[in-house]
């Protein structure tokens, strides 16, 4: 037992959680006693400090920091120790692991778990909205439901699931044995279940109920449940920043010889751009939630209007992150779709360079449009028109991508299987959502529909029809690589069609309902909207059920699906040139890249060549000049 408690893992983590609770109690009581506050033991303060301390104690307990602690204490460390690398049984997925492939799967499974919770919450919401009046939940609980729904789906599903797929695929694609900082990678992952548990646990004390936007001063005057969001987001945000740093360093410093930036698969480009956005923008949401925490917990006055605080400042800081965040939630999807369309249409991506540049253009423009969420907020009037123009212009690089994908289809040989269906579904549905976004940029119109169900429709067309469709496409596409098994094609197609149809029946009418005057974030509405809402609610149940087909397909295929070959899609990119699943260190020797990633239809085209293990010496000698970096230590 003592051994178990000393070794990193769940026993020690449990013990440390206990310690964290005691630490929070001790700290708050000591501070309260020292400043003469009565009573010395205050539940709320204890909980608040506990929310910060317990997760940190947990992370130490499970073993995220062991190596660094040894390093910091000056004890001998073995950088080549790979005992925490790779998975040999399912148990290895439940411990701190430094293998990017294990971490990728941990990420994807964890975030899908939160999709189901977030989606189930949406089902309760739709049940309440099926009829006008109050049936199932009261106003405050309803506010809690959509807040938790959105917080989970954004911070614990879309953002991390993309990071998870990229984690799995990118080192393979660029011919690297792992990420640049494997231990940081593990830490990034373990912060996620912490953040997610915290947000779900808010239901124990009354969930946070100020929307995922958590506008001050509403959020600073809410019950303690709000802090589960405020602090949970810090962990999710720290996780994203750490992963983004890791991706950037990996992509810049660990590409295979010959893999210049303009030979990178577009998925790598997309995650490169996304990571830039994360590194630059995410600190802003961290800060905005620090402000809320300080106002709430310590009585600061960032947002108290009566003491010179500035209420609109919250929105500026929040959206300076959260607009770029919508591209954080979309660009990796663009990358996935580029991979799939090229492979499934058996054609090179049309206009590769413009595809890469348009990603960068979106990154830059993404920072210039944040105030389009504040068109009716009462900010200075003059900011609105410039923001309208920049917002509209963002449709240009996005349009370049859409049209280039269409041109990629043209005169290809299209294999319409499940990943392709989701990719094509994405093309149409995201276009619709993007166009409604452009309509939202048009000032006079948005003055009417802002904060109405039209926005809810836009949100779901871009996030579900856009991001989630690409996630499904990506998961089906890389399923053989990740698990070594094939999924069931028929079930996959059924899943697509039910989802596609029910998605439209659920969310398309929301445009109309919104324009007719139904505000968002309400548990009750006038009789006039009753029939539409009932239809939406019914459709949403089928939409929810369609997810079960997916779950069944994934689980049963993972357990007993037919074995997958190394390259079932006949793809050129490097991840498909190794076995499915790949060897524990990805490559026995680093491959050399000699051509573009999408040269389908070009006779004799090769992307990467692998050194022949039999004549190791000769090949290694040939590659010597390219592989040896000319850096002085």
């Amino acid at each position, binding site marked *: 037992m003592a051994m178990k408690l000393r070794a990193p893992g769940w026993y020690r983590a449990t013990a440390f959680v206990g310690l964290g609770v005691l630490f929070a109690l001790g700290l708050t009581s000591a501070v309260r006693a020292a400043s003469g506050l009565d009573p010395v033991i205050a539940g709320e303060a204890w909980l608040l400090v506990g929310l910060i301390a317990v997760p940190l104690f947990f992370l130490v307990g499970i073993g995220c920091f062991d190596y660094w602690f040894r390093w910091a204490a000056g004890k001998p460390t073995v950088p080549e120790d*790979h005992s925490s690398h790779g998975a040999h049984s399912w148990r290895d997925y439940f411990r701190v692991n430094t293998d990017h492939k294990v971490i990728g799967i941990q990420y994807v499974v964890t975030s899908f778990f939160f999709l189901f919770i977030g989606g189930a919450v949406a089902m309760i919401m739709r049940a309440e909205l099926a009829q006008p009046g109050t049936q199932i939940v009261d106003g405050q609980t309803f506010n809690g439901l959509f807040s938790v729904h959105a917080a989970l789906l954004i911070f614990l599903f879309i953002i991390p699931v993309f990071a998870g797929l990229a984690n799995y695929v990118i080192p393979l694609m660029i011919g690297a044995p792992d990420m640049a900082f494997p231990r940081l990678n593990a830490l990034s992952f373990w912060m996620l279940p912490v953040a997610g548990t915290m947000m779900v646990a808010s239901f124990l004390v009354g969930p946070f109920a100020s929307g995922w936007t958590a506008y001050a001063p509403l959020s600073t005057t809410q019950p303690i449940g709000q802090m589960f969001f405020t602090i949970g987001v810090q962990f999710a945000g720290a996780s994203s920043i750490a992963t983004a740093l890791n991706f950037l360093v990996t992509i810049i410093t660990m590409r295979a010889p010959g893999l210049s930036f303009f030979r990178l698969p577009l998925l790598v480009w997309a995650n490169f751009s996304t990571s830039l956005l994360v590194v630059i923008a995410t600190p802003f949401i961290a800060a*905005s939630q620090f402000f809320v925490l300080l106002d709430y917990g310590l009585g600061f006055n960032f947002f108290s209007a009566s003491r010179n605080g500035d209420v609109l400042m919250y929105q500026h800081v929040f959206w300076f992150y959260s607009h770029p965040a919508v591209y954080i939630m979309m660009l990796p999807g663009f990358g996935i779709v580029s991979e799939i369309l090229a492979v499934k249409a058996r054609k090179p991506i049309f206009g590769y360079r413009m595809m890469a540049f348009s990603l960068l253009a979106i990154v830059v423009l993404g920072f210039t449009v944040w105030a389009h969420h504040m068109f009716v907020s009462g900010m200075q009037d003059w900011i609105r028109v410039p923001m309208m123009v920049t917002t509209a212009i963002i449709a240009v690089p996005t349009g370049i991508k859409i049209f280039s994908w269409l041109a990629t289809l043209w005169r290809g040989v299209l294999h319409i299987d499940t990943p392709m269906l989701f990719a094509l579904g994405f093309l149409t549905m995201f276009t619709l959502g993007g166009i409604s976004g452009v309509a939202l940029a048009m000032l006079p119109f948005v003055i009417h529909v802002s904060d109405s169900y039209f926005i809810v429709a836009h949100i779901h067309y871009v996030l579900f029809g856009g991001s989630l469709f690409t996630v499904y496409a990506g998961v089906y596409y890389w399923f053989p690589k990740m698990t070594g098994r094939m999924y069931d094609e028929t079930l996959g197609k059924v899943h697509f069609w039910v989802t596609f149809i029910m998605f439209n029946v659920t969310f398309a009418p929301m445009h109309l309902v919104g324009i007719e005057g139904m505000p968002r974030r309400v548990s009750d509405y006038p009789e006039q909207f009753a029939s539409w809402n009932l239809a939406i609610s019914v459709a949403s149940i089928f939409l929810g059920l369609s997810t079960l087909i997916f779950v069944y397909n994934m689980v049963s295929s993972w357990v007993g699906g037919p074995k997958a070959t190394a390259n079932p899609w006949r793809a050129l990119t490097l991840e498909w040139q190794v076995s499915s699943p*790949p060897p*524990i260190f990805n490559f026995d020797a680093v491959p050399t890249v000699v051509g573009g990633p999408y040269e389908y239809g070009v006779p004799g085209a090769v992307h990467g060549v692998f050194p022949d293990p039999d004549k190791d010496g000769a090949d290694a000698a040939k590659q010597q000049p390219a592989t040896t970096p000319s*850096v002085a230590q």
Partner: protein
Amino acid sequence: MEAASAAQGALVHDEHHGPPPANRSSAVEPQMLGMLLFIISEVMVFGAFFAAYFFIRIVGGAEWPAQGTELPVAIAGVNTAILLSSSLTLHWALVSVRAGNRAGLKAGILLTTLLGATFLFIQINEYVHLGFAAQDHAQGTIFFGLTGLHGAHVLIGLVLLIMVTVRSFRGHFSEKSHWGLEVPGIYWHFVDVMWIIVYTTIYIL
């Protein structure tokens, strides 16, 4: 995971043989690049706090400093000098280790840590004697917000410096290998530079 071992069957290495060395596609050291990117993030955190400052003082037009309060510009100025000199001693430590001078390394890093701790001590002392609190008004909030954020960074920097000090005294680092000193060092220089900006906007402007 049979596939994994099958693929490795060809090679005679055991499970823990380790990955093939990755190709180095850039002349930049990964740790260095990571730290620079992290500093970009940190700059943005400060940026958000400066945005708050801008909104409260300029857009909202709150008078500065708040009525009836006086900021101890001179003491903070001395403190600034202390922090800046710690950058110099840190640089000295780095130059020493590069030249293989271990005594210089130890002295430099120890001095840096002590100077940093002094800065933090004086800052806390200033908080106690200021005469206004963050709870009083938004000006107080932003004063404590920005200086407190910076103080927190000094604290993190100090923790890093203490680690480096411990390792220096245990005989780590050499002429050839000193990333463990250089990378936290960049962070410390960043903290110093940031203080100049904070000091200028909060105390002087």
